[in-house]
């Protein structure tokens, strides 16, 4: 299984990479939504995207909308991983097509729980 970690913080990408690697994923990274779309174009659709909300160039919500508009990427599981934690924002992300939502800061256990709920853990 392949995971695409999308966050403009290198430290956050490294942390997410470690947790999902332990769950058996091969991990690729992108620093914003546009880079992530380019990555999908060049290497194909991953099984899972972990998506920050606030990023330069293309934010996480715009990325979710862009992915949902593509016919070749419908099977990707999309999880927001963000500090944005108002109910209205969670509802917006789900309405745009995100499957799950993890609020920063989070523990490794919480992310593994969410993957398990989505049927994606080791």
């Amino acid at each position: 299984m392949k995971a695409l970690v999308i966050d403009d913080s290198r430290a956050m990408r490294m942390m997410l990479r470690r947790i999902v690697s332990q769950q058996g994923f091969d991990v690729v990274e992108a620093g914003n939504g546009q880079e992530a779309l380019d990555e999908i174009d060049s290497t194909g659709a991953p099984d899972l995207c972990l998506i920050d909300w606030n990023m330069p160039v293309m934010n996480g919500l715009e990325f979710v909308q862009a992915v949902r508009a593509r016919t070749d990427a419908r099977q990707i599981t999309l999880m927001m991983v963000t500090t944005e934690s108002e109910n209205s924002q969670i509802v917006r992300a789900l309405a745009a097509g995100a499957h799950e939502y993890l609020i920063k800061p989070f523990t490794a256990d919480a992310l593994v729980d969410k993957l398990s709920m989505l049927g994606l853990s080791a």
Partner: protein
Amino acid sequence: MSTSVSVEDFTFVAAYLREKSAISIGPGKEYLVESRLASVARETGYDDVTALIRALRQPIPNPEVGLAVVEAMTTNETSFFRDHHPFEVMRVQLLPEVISRNAMQRRLSVWSAASSTGQELYSIAMLLDTHFPELAAWNVTLHGTDLSTEVVAKANSGRFSPLEVNRGLSAPMLVKYFERQGAAYHIDERLRRWCRFQQMNLATSWPPMQQFDIVFCRNVLIYFDLPVRQQILERIRKSLVPGGYLVLGTAESTVGVVEGYTAVRHGQTTLFKTV
């Protein structure tokens, strides 16, 4: 989490825990070893988790370090819908049976016997509200007890941190049942009023209690020796209606401990039904 646990170290810790506490941790839990043992390493004066495990692998390890490792790895953690599968069995199997049985009296009672900060009982409340709306017209008792007065007060408050609502709650459930107020998430007031938490020590004398249709007592019996475990299971049996159900932790069982229960297996979950 500055160090990574090697495969060899992880295998050693898993075998050590199995030997010392009969608790098993499988592949994919490396992060758990890292995160739990990082604080033990700090507190016991080792540079990192690798150094701590190296010390544990000595022919005669320091018993205090061994104990600290076992405690850190077995400390009862809690989350909403913990382990998922018991709640699925409850939704598909257990509740339809009990609801049908109690249809005349319109009464349902559930006890979370080691309720910690309330996630288990509130998960049951969310499950009832989502899947069994007819229960709104029933007399439903959702009772929680815990040893610690402090955690009972927190459970009764119905307030959870972002870290806590991240654990086990799906995003749709979070927005349906919680409202953000400042830094905390408040559970829906209707559900909060449904659940009542009280302090109680399972290992000493019990206050008079009603009888329950379902009792959850997960991952707590492992902390007691056999005679106390027997006593608790016997008292729970008396607190259950005939044909009532006990839900234990994955590694726990009444079999070979006490009489009066029949084990009923549903996939990964075993229910213990009173005879």
